[in-house]
């Protein structure tokens, strides 16, 4: 399988990464090089094989559904580029 330039633009948008028109041709080439590299996987017989879901077979740990942490709004917003009264500030979303 290989990707065309329209697909490169579409996945860049899905990934929320702005791509300049000038970059599209070589990105297409690089992505197709990787897709060609993984192509041989299509020849492996995976009939009846379970996909691996965890590296080590251990039961999922659970904890009590209680508050264990919190009350640290200053620390949470400390690294944010734009903050007002413990809120993250973003460009207007709703008109």
């Amino acid at each position, binding site marked *: 399988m290989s990707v065309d330039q329209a697909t490169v633009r579409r996945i860049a948008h899905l990934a929320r990464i702005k791509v300049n028109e000038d970059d599209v041709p070589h990105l297409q080439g690089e*992505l197709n090089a990787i897709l060609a590299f993984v192509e041989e996987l299509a020849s492996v017989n995976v009939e009846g*094989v379970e996909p691996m879901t965890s590296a080590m077979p251990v039961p999922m740990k659970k904890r009590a559904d209680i508050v264990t942490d919190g009350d640290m709004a200053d620390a949470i917003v400390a690294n944010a580029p734009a903050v007002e009264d413990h809120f993250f500030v973003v460009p207007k979303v709703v008109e």
Partner: protein
Amino acid sequence: MTELTDLSLADARRALLNKEVSAVDLAKAQIAAIEQARALNAFIKETPEVALAMAADSDARIARGEAGPLEGVPLGIKDLYCTAGVQTTAASHILEGFTPAYESTVSANLWRDGAVMLGKLNLDEFAMGSSNETSYFGPVISPWRRVGSDAALVPGGSSGGSAAAVAARLCFGATATDTGGSIRQPAAFTGTVGIKPTYGRCSRWGIVAFASSLDQAGPIARTVRDAAILLRSMAGHDPKDTTSVDLPVPDYEAAVGRSIKGMKIGIPKEYRLDGMPAEIESLWSQGVEWLKAAGATIVDISLPHTRYALPAYYIVAPAEASSNLARYDGVRFGLRVPGKDIADMYESTRAAGFGKEVRRRILIGTYVLSAGYYDAYYVRAQKIRTLIKGDFESAFAAGVDAILTPATPSAAFGVGEKGSADPVEMYLNDIFTVTVNMAGLPGIAVPAGTSSEGLPLGLQLIGRAFDEETLFAAAEVIEQSAPKVSLPARWWA
């Protein structure tokens, strides 16, 4: 008298406990070495004030007889580990200036045991790379050079700063992480020892995530014993990481020097690649002879799905990365580039903040997870992972205790030499290491010889899940049998 910085971690620890040297003096010696070695670009951030304050505390604890297992030992921390109050960047522009309010569990374990932080070590951006050339803060230069040449070589990656700093005697050991070979390949390139423990052995909490089902923390050190000492402090169960395993941590140092008599070592025929350099082939045979001489039995084994590991990795790792890196959107932390609306702000921020390799992997990951391709790529790759793991399980079930392979397909290469035209050329560096991540097993790289150009070469040992002790025992045999490599002259100082 040898310089303080030439001591092994084990010897430095002994000198500290015997009060032959103070932790402050040891830290000062390392700080001076780091200042002289800026040409290597191994550190993104040096923290001499932090080091001296921690060392003074260590001296006080030693005086009170309350020394921890790593009391006063200065270490470097890969800049993928969050360190409270100290900038943590993952070598990315998008996290430049990010100062965590919290400490990663693994680094907290080291401080609990008395270690001293010298600073944050350079790496490939978000640990994506095999040469440390993708760092936003510039490439790390290996302290090693080819005989008769002063061409700059890569230290390997992604833990290139960790490997270069340990090899150049800038710290007694360093933390690192390994998603596809990022501890073992740079260790092999720099003549140091690196172990990727079993998945779940070390907590991933507070370590910037790349591919969560593959990422694992581990040490890079000067000797097998030093690596064992560090891993014991780093490892352990952490309720904050659901994949962290609740098993007791053995005294790994006690396994160093343990006899390997009667141990069964597997030699997988699939690792004998077409066109493999003769010096890698002979290094491998030499390793076999050393283990045999120590009483191990050598058996030929087959791991039939080996060749599919690297392609499957280049589906699983980018897929998980594209998901993990979705959090860098210019809202809660890191870089923000203004846009005409919120989507434009996201897209502009991520375009400016991520480097080329990271962008490439996010795009591939987004593609293989997108509607219509998920089964053909991602689910298929996860099924192949099951097959790869099954290969190892069969070998271990047949009585094999550990598997010996080369660590890398070549010695270190030059800065700018690989991967500029075709990204896959760089990916092939991880051909021998990536199977271990796919299966979740432990693997150690240990120096075993030198190339015709005088550069270090390493061998890899792969073990059963949670049996790092066997790896330390067998790696020690290789370390003791291998010719001692002379360190590079300090051309950087």
